[in-house]
């Protein structure tokens, strides 16, 4: 599995395509949304969680739609499937790589998000990070599976969001709720049910993805 993750990092290090597009789209979304609200308004702070998760969705869909493109060239997916590893391992490695790219982009745009929305997050930083990690992991778990299914279709840019977004609605609702309450200085214990929901979602979809990936990539 480490060899698979290392390979994805090597490709990204050389091309920088996924991270650059994730960063740019995430940043653009946040900047545009921050200008939609009055800088002094309380509404701006209330809208911040929604803006953050919209940026995660937009950038994430773009990143996921690109995630299997290296495997399309020279039929590298067949090369991967020829390796003597369980095919579920290929899925898990790809999910970890997608998670790492999305989290790296979110961490980079995080300070800009705090600045543009004029937030005080010192106390809630750890909780927000935790919710972001759980949300992005679930998003990557479902998205990696659907990215593998849609990468061979002609209309993959349309198919991926159509299949993916309805399924990940629960995790985004939970993410917005957790982030909103933590930014409003509520204790972590108050958002525990939402965090549990996100954790459960992650576990279920990681297991499902691991089990069905073999059939998803089969002709």
């Amino acid at each position, binding site marked *: 599995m*480490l*060899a698979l993750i290392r390979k994805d990092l090597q490709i990204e290090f050389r091309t920088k395509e996924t991270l650059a597009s994730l960063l740019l789209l995430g940043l653009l979304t946040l900047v545009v949304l921050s200008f939609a609200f009055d800088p002094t308004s309380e509404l701006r702070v209330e809208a911040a969680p929604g803006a953050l998760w919209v940026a995660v969705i937009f950038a994430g869909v773009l990143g996921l739609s690109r995630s299997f493109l290296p495997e399309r060239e020279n039929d*590298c997916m*067949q*090369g991967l499937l*020829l*390796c003597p590893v369980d095919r579920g391992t290929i899925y898990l490695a790809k999910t970890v790589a997608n998670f790492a790219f999305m989290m790296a982009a979110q961490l980079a745009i995080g300070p800009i998000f705090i600045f543009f929305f004029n937030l005080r997050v010192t106390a809630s930083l750890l909780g927000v990070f935790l919710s972001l990690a759980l949300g992005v992991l679930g998003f990557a778990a479902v998205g990696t599976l659907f990215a593998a299914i849609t990468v061979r279709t002609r209309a993959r840019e349309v198919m991926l969001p159509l299949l993916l977004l309805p399924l990940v609605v629960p995790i985004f609702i939970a993410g917005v709720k957790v982030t909103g309450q933590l930014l409003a200085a509520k204790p972590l214990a108050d958002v525990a049910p939402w965090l549990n929901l996100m954790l459960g979602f992650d576990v279920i979809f990681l297991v499902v993805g691991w089990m069905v990936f073999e059939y998803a990539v089969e*002709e």
Partner: protein
Amino acid sequence: MADAVIEARGVARRFAGITALHGVDLSVHAGEAVALFGPNGAGKTTFLRILATLLRPSAGTVRLFGQAVADGGAAARRRIGLLSHQSFLYPDLTPTQNLEFYARMFGAPLARVRELLVQVDLLGWAHRPVRTLSRGLEQRCALARALLHEPDLLLLDEPFTGLDVDAAAMLTGMLRAAHARGTAILMTTHDIGRGFAVCSRAAILVRGRMMWNGPIAEAQRDAFDETWTAAVRGRERARPVRG
């Protein structure tokens, strides 16, 4: 006779209503080199992909190294090297990075990477992205990838396509050396001369049916030529063969 490395019985494969293979039988034993000839669309690549565990047969059974591959075939894949039309090499990585990746995946020692780069005469291009290599150089790197883990079975799908004379001669030499070490080879090709240069047995697949399966010897040459000519002209012999 040595143990069967490949034992395919009644292998059929359908794609969306189109039958690509109709109950193909083929056995390849350890140390044997078999050329699988056939015109375009005969089902050679489909058959090879089934043997490589990349595709499930719609009907029939495949045993590799004496084991059924119904369990996913991960153990069998460790002993198979596949050289296909496509190189399976990541264009943004260098030959060294690609080969190191596949060496890790197959549990082969990393020292094999340099050894093979020397063998396929690719050291000078070892640190350039594969995207910048010519088709011939990329195919050499793909050959190194297929041989990296010293497989017991080499499946070769039109391996000479796109190679210049020198590279083709090098490939023939490497295949002969692998064969001499006891590696079983199953090679699909249109090129009778190259197939005969490497292999000791031939099979002809026409429209998904096995039409010839036997040793390449002078005594059988006329019958082989007749079957091959009919296959190329689009006519099938009356009775498919089994074996």
